[in-house]
């Protein structure tokens, strides 16, 4: 116990004396949390639209005015030449073309249906999907209006259309920032737990002090505990710090129990620290370690569901995700904070991570050798 305490004092002194590490731990996450939350947004505003109106009718103008009224669209070009609009799309001056052909209104009257063309720049598929759904929404509203006003005496007009009024639970205003912020918090906690622990261990290996420690009667568990505990505490502190920041800046909701969140984070950190420890046992230099850690971080992060829903990944990818600790935490932090899930709702994730922690720590500790 006394030996462990001696070692812990040493670790904390070294961490707080490191001039690079402190800003790394406290300033960078703040920058990230603020910057990424605002920047990595899936809300689109100012979609640039070109309108090709070859009909010049009341019906076509009504549709255009609908788009003009929307805060999401801005009209960059109004023309009757389709090719002109297409060249604007090609040179990336507009994102989408709305094309109404000659006879748009006439056909609508005569046949009670008509068609229009939407050309979307799909270089960025997510963006294209969003543009499409925004447009569909506006056209649907337009449909409703036309039916009500023009065909009111008609049989078809009498038929009430189904009107969907969505109610978004757990994030009623669909505030994307809240969703992003919780995700970024997960990444930061992971980064500190995994990367800093591993770097610290490999740095001692490079400096040669590990060898000196290995000839002393220190037990492996004492040394490793002293290495892991500080970063666990710092990562937990970082979580608390982030939650406060999120509350103040973005009004981050905290519906569920914070105690449960911290308990889950502790288990999660055991897994992450275990991975960091394991990586440090198989690398000799900080360079090797950085490369490996980078690989794992990127893979874990992009598969975790931070940007795209993990549930919509193909089944084989979801199987791989069983090994991705970040995916568990990503899901659970949002469940607890936004939805107020209790322990009963996260038991599967909780016990999975407990097993994961046991396995990875056993592997890492066995792989850490005092004698080669």
């Amino acid at each position, binding site marked *: 116990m006394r*030996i462990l305490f*001696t*070692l812990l004092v*040493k670790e904390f002194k070294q961490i707080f004396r490191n001039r690079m590490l402190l800003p790394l731990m406290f300033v960078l996450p703040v920058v990230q949390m603020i910057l990424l939350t605002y920047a990595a947004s899936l809300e689109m505003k100012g979609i640039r639209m070109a309108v090709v109106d070859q009909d010049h009718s009341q019906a076509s103008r009504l549709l255009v005015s609908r788009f003009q009224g929307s805060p999401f669209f801005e009209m960059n070009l109004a023309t009757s030449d389709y090719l002109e609009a297409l060249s604007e799309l090609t040179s990336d001056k507009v994102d989408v073309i709305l094309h109404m052909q000659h006879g748009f209104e006439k056909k609508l009257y005569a046949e009670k249906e008509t068609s229009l063309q939407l050309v979307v720049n799909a270089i960025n598929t997510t963006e294209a999907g969003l543009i499409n759904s925004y447009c569909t929404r506006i056209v649907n509203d337009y449909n409703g209006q036309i039916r009500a006003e023009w065909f009111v005496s008609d049989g078809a007009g009498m038929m009430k259309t189904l009107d969907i009024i969505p109610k978004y639970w757990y994030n009623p205003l669909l505030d994307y920032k809240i969703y992003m912020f919780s995700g970024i918090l997960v990444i930061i906690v992971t980064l500190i737990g995994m990367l800093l622990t591993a770097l610290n261990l490999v740095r001692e290996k490079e400096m040669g002090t590990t060898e000196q420690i290995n*000839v002393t*009667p220190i037990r492996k568990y004492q040394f490793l505990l002293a290495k892991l505990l500080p970063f666990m505490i710092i990562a937990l502190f970082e979580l608390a710090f982030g939650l406060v920041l999120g509350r103040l800046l973005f009004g981050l909701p905290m519906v569920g129990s914070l105690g449960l969140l911290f308990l889950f984070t502790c288990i999660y950190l055991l897994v992450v620290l275990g991975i960091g420890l394991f990586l440090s046992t198989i690398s000799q230099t900080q360079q090797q370690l950085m490369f490996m850690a980078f690989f794992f971080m990127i893979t874990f992060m992009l598969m975790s569901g931070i940007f795209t829903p993990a549930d919509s990944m193909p089944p084989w990818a979801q199987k791989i995700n069983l090994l991705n600790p970040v995916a568990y935490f990503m899901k659970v932090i949002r469940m607890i904070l936004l939805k107020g899930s209790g322990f009963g709702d996260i038991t599967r994730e909780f016990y999975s991570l407990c097993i994961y922690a046991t396995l990875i720590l056993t592997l890492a500790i066995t792989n850490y050798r005092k*004698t*080669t």
Partner: protein
Amino acid sequence: MVQQEHIIEVKDLVKKFGSFTANDRLSFHVEKGEIFGFLGANGAGKTTAMRILCGLSYPSSGEIMVAGHDVYREREKIKKKIGYMSQKFSLYEDLTVSENIRLYAGIYGLRKKQIATREEQLLERLGMLQIRDRFISEIPLGWKQKLAFSVAIFHQPAIVFLDEPTGGVDPITRRQFWEMIHDATEEGITVFVTTHYMDEAEYCDRVSIMVEGRIEALDTPAALKQQFESENMNEVFLKLARK
């Protein structure tokens, strides 16, 4: 005459890395309280053998006893009784002189009070009282080496292993360093030292000379000079290495 105690006993020590044999059937013993010089050119296998004795590395085969314990089964017991100063500098650069002393003393389980008195005595003897709160990274190499040695014997081990302790320091500091080694033996500590400075071999009670993984000669410096008809240890070494 009292029977001399063998504090290190090595019989047929072999260490292989793949097909390369770093230590080829080494057999020797070290007597309690002596300064045992472990000589050889770079790459002769000195450090490899020393790491095995310290419990840092597994031998491929052979019987090895250190301080009465078997290196296969009782490494942790051995570690309590030895001190070690590696070739690579082993103090923490970002801790102060005093913090380093306390850290290592704490690791060996010394009591707080005990540490405080011994630290005071040590710093006074080394003339480092004024710099006790300076970071290791700020003090000159020679001082660091002396401090590293003092830290290695702070817990009063039975044996101290020194791996090329005087690499890169000036002749005056080297001289002072060897005085410290002598003082340590007065306290009953056995010294096992590797070096490739042949003049330092003269300070040892007995030396072994390794060439390409084998011990080619082992005796007192005087006997070796006589055996190889040489003026000094340098000549002895050159004759052996060129054989």
